[in-house]
C-alpha cells in the first residue's frame, strides 16, 4: 500500500498533533484516548498514530510489529472525533480504520488480530467456539426460535459465549418474556454481526457477514431487531443499509426504558444502591444515545445515581472496542482504561457500576477485581439490575 491508494491521502497530513483529542469534554485530563491513557507515549496518542500511519504510507517508516500494535491499539472509541477541533474531525477514526485495512490487505497484522479474524471467518465468532455452544446461554429459559415474532433478539458473540456476558443476555431475555414481548432468537444459527471486524479493518469479512445476516434476517421475515450489544446495534443500524439491509434496530436499553415507561416491567426497589453508569462508545459517541440507559436506572426505586466525572460524550472507553476485549492490547497495567474506569466508579462512591454492553461488562468486571474493589462495587448490565 502506498499513500496514493489510501482513501484519506488528501487528509491525513492535516492532523496538527495538537492533542485536543486527548481530552474528554470537560478537559479534566489528557487521558481520554484509551491507548494514550495506557501507554502515555506520543506514539499512542491519536495524533501520533496518524503521523505514524502517514509515515508508513509515505515510505518514511517501514512496517513493524510495533507499528501494527500502535495502530491496532486504537479501540475506535471516537473520543478523537468528538474533540478534534478541525473540520476533518469526522474522519479521524476512519483514517485509522483505513490504515488497519491496509495492514489487513498486506497481511501485516498482529497475531491476536489474525486469530480474531480467522475465528470469525471460520466459526462466526471470535472465540473459535462451536456454533452449537451459542445456545448455552439460553438453557432453561424456554426461548422460541425466531419465526415471525415482532422482534428478533440478536444476542451477539459475547452474550452468547462469554460466561459473564451470558448473564446479561439471560436477564434481558427474561425481562422481554415478563413484559410479554413477542420475540424469538436465532440460537446456533446466529453469527457475528461484523462490527468488530470492520473496526479491525477487515472490510471484506464485514461485507460477507453483513450479506449472510441480511439474507438470513430477510428470509426469516425479520423487521425489528433488539440487540444486546451496542456494537451490533451500531453495525446493523449504520452499515447494514449499505448492503441492502434495512431493519428497525433497537438497543436493549431503549426497549427496557420503553417497557418500564409503559409499566410492562417493574424495577425492583434497591434502597442501598448507589449506581453510576459507564457509557458504551457504540451507544454513546457512535449513536448519541445517552438517555435510554439513564432512564432505565432512574426508574429503580430507592437507588441513588451518581455520574462519574467523565460521562456521556466525554466518557472514557473501557478499552474493549475494535476487538480489544479479545486482542487485549491495552491490558496488563494499572493504567489499562478499564482499571482507570473502575477507580473512577469508586471515586463516584458507587456500589453498582452499571453498563449496557457485554464488552464493557466483562472488561470492567475484570478490572474491578484486579483493582481489589469487588467487595465494594458490583458491575451489572442494566438488565441484570432490573432482574436483581
Amino acid at each position: 500500500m502506498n499513500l496514493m491508494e489510501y482513501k484519506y491521502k488528501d487528509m491525513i497530513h492535516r492532523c496538527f498533533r495538537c492533542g485536543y483529542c486527548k481530552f474528554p469534554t470537560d478537559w479534566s485530563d489528557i487521558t481520554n484516548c484509551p491507548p494514550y491513557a495506557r501507554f502515555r507515549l506520543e506514539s499512542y496518542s491519536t495524533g501520533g498514530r496518524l503521523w505514524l500511519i502517514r509515515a508508513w504510507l509515505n515510505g518514511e517508516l517501514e512496517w513493524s510489529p510495533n507499528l501494527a500494535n500502535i495502530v491496532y491499539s486504537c479501540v475506535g472509541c471516537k473520543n478523537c472525533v468528538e474533540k478534534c477541533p478541525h473540520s476533518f474531525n469526522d474522519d479521524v477514526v476512519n483514517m485509522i480504520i483505513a490504515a488497519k485495512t491496509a495492514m489487513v490487505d498486506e497481511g501485516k497484522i498482529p497475531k491476536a488480530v489474525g486469530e480474531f479474524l480467522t475465528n470469525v471467518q471460520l466459526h462466526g465468532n471470535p472465540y473459535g467456539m462451536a456454533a452449537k455452544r451459542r445456545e448455552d446461554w439460553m438453557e432453561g429459559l424456554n426461548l422460541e426460535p425466531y419465526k415471525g415474532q415482532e422482534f428478533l433478539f440478536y444476542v451477539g458473540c459475547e452474550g452468547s459465549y462469554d460466561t459473564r456476558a451470558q448473564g446479561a443476555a439471560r436477564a434481558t431475555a427474561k425481562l422481554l418474556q415478563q413484559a410479554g414481548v413477542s420475540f424469538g432468537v436465532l440460537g446456533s444459527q446466529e453469527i457475528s454481526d461484523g462490527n468488530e471486524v470492520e473496526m479491525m479493518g477487515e472490510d471484506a469479512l464485514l461485507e460477507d457477514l453483513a450479506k449472510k445476516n441480511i439474507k438470513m434476517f430477510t428470509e426469516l421475515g425479520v423487521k425489528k431487531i433488539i440487540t444486546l450489544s451496542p456494537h451490533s446495534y451500531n453495525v446493523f443500524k449504520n452499515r447494514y443499509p449499505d448492503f441492502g439491509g434495512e431493519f428497525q434496530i433497537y438497543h436493549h436499553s431503549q426497549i427496557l426504558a420503553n417497557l418500564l415507561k409503559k409499566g410492562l416491567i417493574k424495577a425492583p426497589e434497591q434502597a442501598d444502591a448507589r449506581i453510576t453508569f459507564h457509557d458504551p462508545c457504540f451507544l454513546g459517541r457512535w449513536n448519541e444515545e445517552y438517555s435510554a440507559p439513564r432512564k432505565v436506572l432512574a426508574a429503580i426505586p430507592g437507588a441513588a445515581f451518581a455520574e462519574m466525572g467523565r460521562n456521556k460524550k466525554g466518557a472514557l472507553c473501557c478499552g474493549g472496542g475494535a476487538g480489544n476485549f479479545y486482542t487485549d492490547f491495552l491490558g496488563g497495567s494499572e493504567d489499562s482504561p478499564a482499571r482507570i474506569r473502575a477507580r473512577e466508579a469508586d471515586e463516584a462512591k458507587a456500589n453498582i457500576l452499571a453498563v449496557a454492553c457485554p464488552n464493557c461488562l466483562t472488561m470492567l468486571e475484570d478490572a474491578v477485581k484486579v483493582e481489589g474493589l469487588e467487595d465494594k462495587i458490583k458491575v451489572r448490565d442494566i438488565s441484570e439490575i432490573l432482574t436483581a
Partner: protein
Amino acid sequence: MSSIHQELVNIVGEDYASNRREELFTYSKDLGTSQPLWPEYVVAPKTTDELQAVVRLANETKTPIVPLGGGMTLAGLALPQQGGVIIDLKRMDKILEVNEQGRYMVVEAGISHGKITSYLKKNHPNLMHSEPGAPPAATVGGNLAIHGQGDLAHPYGFNTDMVNGLEVVLPTGDIARFGSCAVGSGWYTMHPLPDIGLFLGWNGATGIITKVSLKLYPCKKFRENNMFVVENEEFVPDVLFEISHLGMAEDLIATSSEIPPMMNRLHYISIINTGDSEEELEFKRHMTFDVQLAKYIRNGVGGIVSLYDERSRPQVSKSADWKKGGGFEYVGAIVPVSFYPECYRRGSEISGRHFIPYTVLGRVIGSCHSMMFSWSYAFNRADDATVKHARDALHETDELVMELNGTIWKPAIFGQKLMLERMDPGALRLMKEVKKILDPNGIMNPGNWEVD
C-alpha cells in the same frame, strides 16, 4: 538491547521506555517547520525519584537529555539537537495542593494547563490561573521554561511572574527548591530569597522543573469578550493604553489577519471584561467604551464589534488548517506596545512575499509594559515548498525582530543565535558560567541557549 535502554527500563518499567523506531520517529518531529531530529531513547517517568534516576544515568553516561512537556512550542525546542534521551514529563501531572485563601496551588510540572483549568472550575470556581492560548495539552513546566504568557497577562504579566515556589531536578540528579518551600514552609511565596531566574525561560538547559506553586487569581462569575475594531494600525497602541489605564481587563489582545476577509487590514481588539454581576460588567463596559474609547467612536475611526460574547478556550490551532495543510509556526517577539503598527506592516509584507495569508496578534503583558507580538505562517505539511516558504518567512521575521530592536520570545535555534550575538557581554559570560556550574557535562537540552 543497549544498556542505557535497559537501565531506563529498570527505572520506569518496560512500558515507559522505548528505543523502538516508532517512538523515536514520533519524538523526532514537532508541529512546526523544524527538520526532524532523532532521539535514541524516549522515557516517561512517573515520579521525581524516577526522573532523578534518569538524570543521574544521563549525567554518568554523558548522554544528552531533553525534557518534554506538551511539545507545543512549534519552534523545535524539545527536539534533541544532539540525540540522547527525550524525557516525556506528562505522566508527572498530579495536583498536590490547592490553598484557596492563599490563592496558590502546587502541581507537578508535567500537568497540562487544560487539566488545571478544568480542576479549578470544578473545585474552586472562584480561582483561576493564567492559561496560555496554546492547545490545552501544553504543560506548566514547558510553559515556564519558555517564559510563556496566558490569559491573565494584562493584569499580572508573564506566567513566570506568577510562580510562588519551584522544585527542580538539577543536571546532577539532585533536587533544589526555591521560595518559601525551600525553608520548609508552605509554597506561598517566591521571595525574598533565593531567586529562581536560573531555570525559568531556559528551555530546560539548566534543570528540569518538577514541582511548581502557581499563583491563582480571583475568577469572576461572568467573563465576556468585548470586541473593538480600528482600521488604522497606528491607533492600536493608544487603544490598548487607554484600556489598560482602567486596569480592569482580564486579557487584552489585538489581531489582524487576511483570512477571513472580515479581518483583513483591520485590527480587532479583544477586551476580556469580567464581573460577578451584571452591574459590575456594565460598569466596565461603560468605562471602556463610553469613557475611555469614546473619542474613537465619536470620530468614526473605532467601533464596537460585539459585546456580551462568552469567552471560550481559543482554538488557535484551527488557523493551522486554513489551507487544509495541517501546519503553522509563528515567531513571537516581546516588544513595546508601540511597535504594533510597524510589526504588523512589516509582517504582512513578509507573508506576502511567501504567499501566506498574513496573521498577526499582539497580547498585552502587564499594564502595557510590553506585548507578545506574533507572526504566524501556515503551511501545508504535504507540500515541501510551502514548508520552506514558512521556514524562510520565520527566519526573516526573526531578523526583523532584531532589526526593530525587539526580543525574540521562545526563539528557535536560529533565533537564539541572533539573540546571543547581540547579548551584552557581561550577561553572556554569566550565562556561560551558570551553565558550566550547573551542567558541567553539557547534557541538558544541549544546543539551547548555548554560549560558545
